[in-house]
């Protein structure tokens, strides 16, 4: 029976640099594919909306270099998805550029590269919507309407395995994919080799965060998955980690609302009946997943929209009297802002008083109320379309916490400690406008693949 080995070195390429020792150990197991996801929507909407990356380019180069050199030395394909954190076209092009640079630096022999683009123009989404396509909302969201799309700066479609399978079948030795479902990156080589969608996607779900499926807790260490028939054997490549039934079962529910079902474009992986068995000192066998295909193929679409420019100020409060009347002090500051700019609103400004030491982390979910710490750290966050307004509102907020008029105050030289009397320039604010499902003609239809040969042998270099 056919057995395929997949090596995964990191759960989010370059979020911090991968650990090279366990990766080298994994390469000695002679994997058939080296696979890593490089993106997420966890960092919030700004990287997508602003089309930028949060992973440092030096770390992206570090991780891609390790993977590329190993894959070319072993002569096996390498697959990276959600390039450069967001999987936009910029991210794909950036990673392809890095691959080319690394190939040139190491004088690698020519290889075939597939770049798969996942960005979808907002105008194209609007065209389809206006033509009657229903773009269904996920997680309680309403279907996308014209206003939702008008608020969207940038959108990506989340690819499933099909475009990657097609690239591998066309001979790609390196696949740089735009926004992808994490598990699809691992499912693609398995589907290529004739495995069932059930074991293919299930393997992906278990492997996509690399060493998070093993214990004890370690990030950025490699995991080896060996797939045969309808089962996968998972082994950590760091010698101090173990895959156990508990660690694998625990990971199978990670960062997903529904522990038993993984939704992919075209179907759902049902993990209700999965079984986990310790098959070696550090290896666990997982099996029992089922797959049900959907009647209609829909891809997830993520979209992010700009809401304004951000300015920040940091203010500390130590006076117990001021802390006891913190709501009044903030109300005073809000009042002074409203005197100049009117009430808050999307066309004018929004101001948030983050109260560290008093529900600053948990807000509405904090059960511990009316129990502030002995000092409070206030972060004033202002968003406004006009950066000058944002700056002025932030300054009014910070200085009016300093000048708050409280009836019995004894500290009449300032009711707050300013970390520094300056307004900090933040990155622009964005919101997730789209977390939706787009019906498509096929699972490859919204994606564009460009095959190239990376040939940087010195003779071919331009003078």
């Amino acid at each position: 029976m056919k057995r395929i080995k997949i090596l995964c070195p990191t759960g989010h390429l370059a979020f911090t640099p991968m650990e090279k020792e366990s990766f080298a150990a994994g390469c000695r197991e002679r994997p058939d594919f080296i696979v890593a996801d490089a993106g997420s929507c966890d960092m919030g909407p700004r990287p997508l909306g602003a089309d930028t990356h949060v992973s440092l380019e030096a770390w992206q180069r570090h991780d891609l270099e390790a993977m590329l050199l190993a894959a070319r030395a072993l002569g096996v394909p390498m697959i990276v998805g959600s390039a450069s954190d967001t999987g936009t076209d910029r991210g794909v092009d950036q990673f392809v550029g890095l691959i080319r640079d690394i190939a040139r630096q190491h004088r690698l022999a020519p290889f075939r590269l597939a770049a798969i683009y996942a960005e979808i123009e907002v105008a194209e989404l609007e065209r389809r919507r206006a033509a009657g396509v229903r773009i269904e909302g996920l997680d309680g969201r309403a279907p996308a309407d014209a206003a939702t799309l008008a608020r969207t700066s940038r959108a990506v479609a989340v690819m499933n395995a099909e475009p990657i399978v097609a690239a591998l079948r066309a001979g790609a030795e390196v696949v740089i994919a735009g926004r992808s479902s994490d598990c699809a990156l691992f499912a693609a080589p398995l589907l290529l080799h004739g495995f069932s969608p059930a074991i293919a996607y299930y393997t992906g779900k278990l492997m996509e965060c690399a060493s998070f499926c093993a214990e004890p807790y370690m990030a950025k260490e490699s995991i080896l998955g060996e797939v045969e028939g309808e089962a996968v054997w998972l082994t950590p490549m760091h010698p101090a980690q173990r895959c156990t039934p508990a660690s694998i079962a625990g990971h199978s529910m990670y960062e997903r609302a529904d522990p038993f079902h993984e939704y992919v474009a075209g179907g759902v992986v049902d993990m209700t009946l999965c079984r986990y068995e310790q098959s070696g000192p550090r290896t666990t066998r997982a099996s029992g997943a089922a797959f049900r295909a959907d009647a209609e193929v829909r891809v997830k679409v993520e979209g992010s929209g700009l809401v304004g420019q951000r300015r920040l100020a940091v203010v500390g409060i130590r006076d117990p009297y001021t802390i006891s009347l913190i709501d009044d002090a903030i109300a005073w500051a809000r009042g002074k802002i409203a005197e100049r700019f009117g009430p808050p609103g999307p066309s004018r400004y929004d101001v948030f008083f983050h109260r560290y030491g008093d529900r600053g982390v948990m807000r509405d979910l904090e059960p511990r109320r009316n129990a502030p710490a002995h000092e409070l750290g206030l972060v004033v966050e202002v968003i406004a379309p006009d950066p000058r307004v944002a700056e002025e509102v932030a300054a009014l907020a910070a200085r009016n916490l300093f000048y708050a008029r409280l009836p019995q105050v004894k500290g009449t030289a300032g009711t707050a400690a300013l970390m520094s009397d300056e307004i900090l320039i933040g990155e622009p604010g964005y919101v997730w406008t789209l977390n939706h499902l787009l019906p498509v003609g096929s699972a490859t239809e919204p994606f564009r693949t460009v095959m190239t040969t990376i040939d940087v042998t010195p003779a071919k270099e331009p003078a």
Partner: protein
Amino acid sequence: MADTLRDLASTIRSKNAGPDNITFDVIFRDRANFERVRDSGALSRAAVAALYDIPPARIVNFDVIDAASAIKFTIRRLQPSGTPGESDVFGSQQYAPLFDVVIP
């Protein structure tokens, strides 16, 4: 004797599940501890809603997972992650109140 969830569970965590949800995992290494918590009713949908003082409708999933000795639930965010005013982009520090849940 009354213990707290902190004494009995080996993993208590929270994390984004997409932009609109925060999901919570309580995982037990010890099967007896899992069964004790499961059967106590102290960690139910209603108990979680009361603990976080939210309408039960905001708990969009609540599952007891026997195969993993785990209890998992998911809370709908009031605003998508990272919206201006955000305090926990990754949703990764919302589990702390679970530590003190008393298990009879």
